[in-house]
């Protein structure tokens, strides 16, 4: 795979499609020769981001689906997940998740698993941009 190459996937905002997204990113990471444990990190982070999009997002005119964009970079793989949201929703990454609660782990896990995470929430769209560096380990 060459640097700068872009791969994009669009999935319906439904739980059964989350696996398709994470397996697609897994395939890209394998071709890029990420280490097996890094591929697992990527799969989990992408799965969590897509799960958030499916659970908390909503179909808007601009973003009726969940969009996954992968970019091959010199330092690793960038993955951007974009979905529609209702105005006013703001993300919050807990410093440490509450282990007695049944939710709230997704964004925390993403931050632990990836080397860089940028959240961009505007009035109608949520974007999570993540980078996994080849050879580096986030945790």
């Amino acid at each position, binding site marked *: 795979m060459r640097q700068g190459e872009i791969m994009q996937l669009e999935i319906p905002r439904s739980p059964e499609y989350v*696996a398709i997204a994470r397996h697609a990113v897994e395939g890209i990471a394998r071709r890029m020769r990420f280490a097996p444990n890094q591929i697992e990190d990527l799969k989990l982070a992408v799965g969590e981001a897509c*799960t958030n999009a499916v659970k908390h997002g909503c179909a808007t005119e601009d973003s009726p689906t969940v969009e996954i964009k992968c970019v091959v970079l010199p330092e690793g793989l960038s993955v951007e997940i974009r979905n529609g949201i209702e105005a006013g929703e703001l993300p919050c990454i807990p410093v440490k998740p509450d*282990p007695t609660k049944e939710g709230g*782990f997704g964004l925390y896990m993403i931050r632990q698993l990836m080397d860089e995470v940028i959240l961009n929430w505007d009035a109608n769209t949520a974007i999570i941009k993540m980078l996994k560096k080849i050879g580096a380990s986030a945790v």
Partner: protein
Amino acid sequence: MNFKMDVRTMETDLPIIELEGEVDVYTAPQLKQQIIGILESGAKELVVDLTKVDYLDSTALGVLIGGLKRMREVDGNMVLICPSPRIRRVFEITGLDKIFDIYNSEEEAREVIGKETV
């Protein structure tokens, strides 16, 4: 989607849920229903075997936490069998390895649970 769930009873009459494949936002609701069913049958202890699980996400963690809380509300317990370092890591990075009793094998779990119930 690769997911399978079986329920059986160990020799000690303990129910054990054996999971296989990917437990995620799509498949975890099936696990939740199974745990609720076992709770409603009056069981106070439950073993969830993750030996054959190769992917586990935060939705599955939430279901397991819910099951554990409900078991402990009736002075029971839910323990996990998880020999896979990959799956254990999900519990470690979220701090849930300190909340759940996690064992490497059914034999190990049975030995400890057996002692607790005597």
